[in-house]
């Protein structure tokens, strides 16, 4: 039987089915929500809105389409939630105005009502954003009007409307960049389509179940989850669950027999391990996406139902580290293994294994690799402090460029932290020697500062390009002797530079000279310097250490 007229009862039924269909799909629509605010509530909001409308309709028994539509619109208005909810209420406000006073609807009436609803909806906004529910409503209404000119079958009309809505929805990413970026279609538009599909199902006399909405693909959902989780973590808090884990399982009959699978129960089980959980399954395959701290548990749970087909685990902290440096750091190391708790911990920075060992030998708990040209970040400090696990922490940055990062890190730590701004390795060593675990943090800082001030630092390194400094011409590849901040000598021969530098640094008050030679120098070459010093100066002790540091052939301290 073909219907040419829609009566009030049918219309009410359409509304109810539309609402049911929306309600069934609201979770999926939530997942698509990235605009205007990616808070994942579009489906829920639209569902609440339309439910409020339907409640009014159910409460009023009438066979008059105009009255049904009016009641529905009123219910929508009262219950409008969220942006798409308000738009939906507006669409049907226009719709109901158009059919006011009509007892039944022809195809033409229906198309006009759609058009009027869109007009109304567009009037209530200053700057309509295209690529949203508005666009989907507009495109499908246009289609309806065109269709009604040549065909007066409302069922076919509705079919055309749904088809056009679907096509329009597909186009939304081209109109709204944020959708394209995330790779989804508009959530509100999807909601409207779902409602229209409900309408169509009733007109065709089908059950809604036959019309199961094409599910958004796993990939789509994963993208949305990531987008949301990034947004949330950027602003609100740090990452609680560090690994993006995807597992694909092929169901095995034996295992499933023993351990019957239901998506819901499985979801419950997994939810304790992390968030951004997605579970999709068909007869053969089970796909899981979750952000978990312990991916192993997730895999074990999934494996109960079958065999592993594919596993992908990504460390999200690494991925986000550039954006989330600080927030993450506090958490990232929380779960990593901790050192034994101590009262004091000294954390220092150096390049070269030899120097690191030197610091450790003198009692530094942690040595962060870094220095000139390779400054450690605040995050590195925070991590080291967490791992050091102490109540009181002293940071020795050993480079003027790193002092800032150390201070920044000190301000975010829970422990009592002081930064002793050592600007070179010798200063750091001197400060470390002055450390006394029996003293208070403040007293130590004072002592260390005093000690590092008494040390003169010299460095021998090579020029990476031709340059001229203070009137001195320096050629690429030449060696330079740097005394504190100034280049005091430059020659092609490294040994000569070192000797020259030492000669300028040592004076009659000097007692101890410490030479740390780099990875490009040998013990023998360093000993040559001792001979030189002993030749020219009396009464000084010289110590040499193998530092293995790159870039600097020698690091010299004189005190």
């Amino acid at each position: 039987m073909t219907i040419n007229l829609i009566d009030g009862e049918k219309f009410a039924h359409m509304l109810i089915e539309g609402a049911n269909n929306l309600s069934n799909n609201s979770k999926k629509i939530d997942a698509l929500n990235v605009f205007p605010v990616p808070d994942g509530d579009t489906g829920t909001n639209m569902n609440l809105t339309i439910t409020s409308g339907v409640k009014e309709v159910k409460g009023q028994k009438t066979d008059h389409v105009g009255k049904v539509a009016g009641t529905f619109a009123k219910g929508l208005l009262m219950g409008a939630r969220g942006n798409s909810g308000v738009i939906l209420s507006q669409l049907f406000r226009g719709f109901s105005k158009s059919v006011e006073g009509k007892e039944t609807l022809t195809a033409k009436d229906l198309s006009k009502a759609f058009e009027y609803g869109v007009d109304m909806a567009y009037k209530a906004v200053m700057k309509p954003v295209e690529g949203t529910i508005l666009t989907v409503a507009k495109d499908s209404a246009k289609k309806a009007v065109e269709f009604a000119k040549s065909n007066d079958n409302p069922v076919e009309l509705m079919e055309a409307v749904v088809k056009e809505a679907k096509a329009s929805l597909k186009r939304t990413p081209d109109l709204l960049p944020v959708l394209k970026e995330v790779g989804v279609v508009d959530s509100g538009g999807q909601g409207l389509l779902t409602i229209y599909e409900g309408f169509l199902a009733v007109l065709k006399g089908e059950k809604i179940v036959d019309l199961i909405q094409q599910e958004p693909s796993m990939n789509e959902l994963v993208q949305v989850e990531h987008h949301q989780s990034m947004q949330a973590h950027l602003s609100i808090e740090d990452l609680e669950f560090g690994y993006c884990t995807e597992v694909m399982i092929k169901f095995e009959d034996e295992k499933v027999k023993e351990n019957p699978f239901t998506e819901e129960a499985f979801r419950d089980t997994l939810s304790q391990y992390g968030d951004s959980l997605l579970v999709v399954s068909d007869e053969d395959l089970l796909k899981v996406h979750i952000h978990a701290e312990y991916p192993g548990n997730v895999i074990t749970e999934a494996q109960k139902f079958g065999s592993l087909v594919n596993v992908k685990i990504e460390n999200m902290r690494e991925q986000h580290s550039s954006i989330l440096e600080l927030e993450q750091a506090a958490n990232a190391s929380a779960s990593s293994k901790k050192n034994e708790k101590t009262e004091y911990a000294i954390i220092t920075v150096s390049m070269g294994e030899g120097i690191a060992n030197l610091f450790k030998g003198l009692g530094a708990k942690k040595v962060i690799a870094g220095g000139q040209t390779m400054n450690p970040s605040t995050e590195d400090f925070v991590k080291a402090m967490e791992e050091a696990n102490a109540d009181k922490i002293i940071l020795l940055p050993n480079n003027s460029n790193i002092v800032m990062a150390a201070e920044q890190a000190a301000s975010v730590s829970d422990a009592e932290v002081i930064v002793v701004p050592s600007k070179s390795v010798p200063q750091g060593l001197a400060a470390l020697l002055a450390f006394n675990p029996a003293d208070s943090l403040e007293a130590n800082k004072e002592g260390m500062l005093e000690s590092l001030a008494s040390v003169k630092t010299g460095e021998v390194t090579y020029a990476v390009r031709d340059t001229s400094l203070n009137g001195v011409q320096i050629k690429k590849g030449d060696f330079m002797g740097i005394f504190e901040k100034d280049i005091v000598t430059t020659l092609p021969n490294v040994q000569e530079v070192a000797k020259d530098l030492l000669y300028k640094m040592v004076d009659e008050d000097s007692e101890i000279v410490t030479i740390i030679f780099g990875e490009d120098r040998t013990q023998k070459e360093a000993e040559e310097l001792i001979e030189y010093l002993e030749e020219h100066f009396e009464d000084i002790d010289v110590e040499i250490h193998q530092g293995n540091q790159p870039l600097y052939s020698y690091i010299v301290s004189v005190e």
Partner: protein
Amino acid sequence: MTIEMKTNYGKIDVSKEVVAVIAGGAAIDCYGIVGMASQKQLKDGITDLLGKENLGRGVVIRELEDEEIHIDMYIIVSYGTKISEVAHNVQSKVKYQLEKMLGLKVNSVNIFVQGVRVINP
């Protein structure tokens, strides 16, 4: 007249005008808003005369001590919408947009509904 944010490398100053424009832009993206109500008649009047787009209209940024930032938005809504919901949508959109674009945390977004426009299509 600026809002200051500190980072590792130094500070970032964002003029209130910029914050107002972003907030205003976010607001008129919201469904149900048909206009903004000017609070600075003279300034907005002149901008109108010059025919410039004036997104900062009807937005007042207040910065209290303790770096608290409050935004007052004077809006005109469409008749027949659920006004409380429209206002709420504006609040969340403005807050989100400022956080996303400027990394700016806003303490409050206060909505003043200054007018309602009746539209008959």
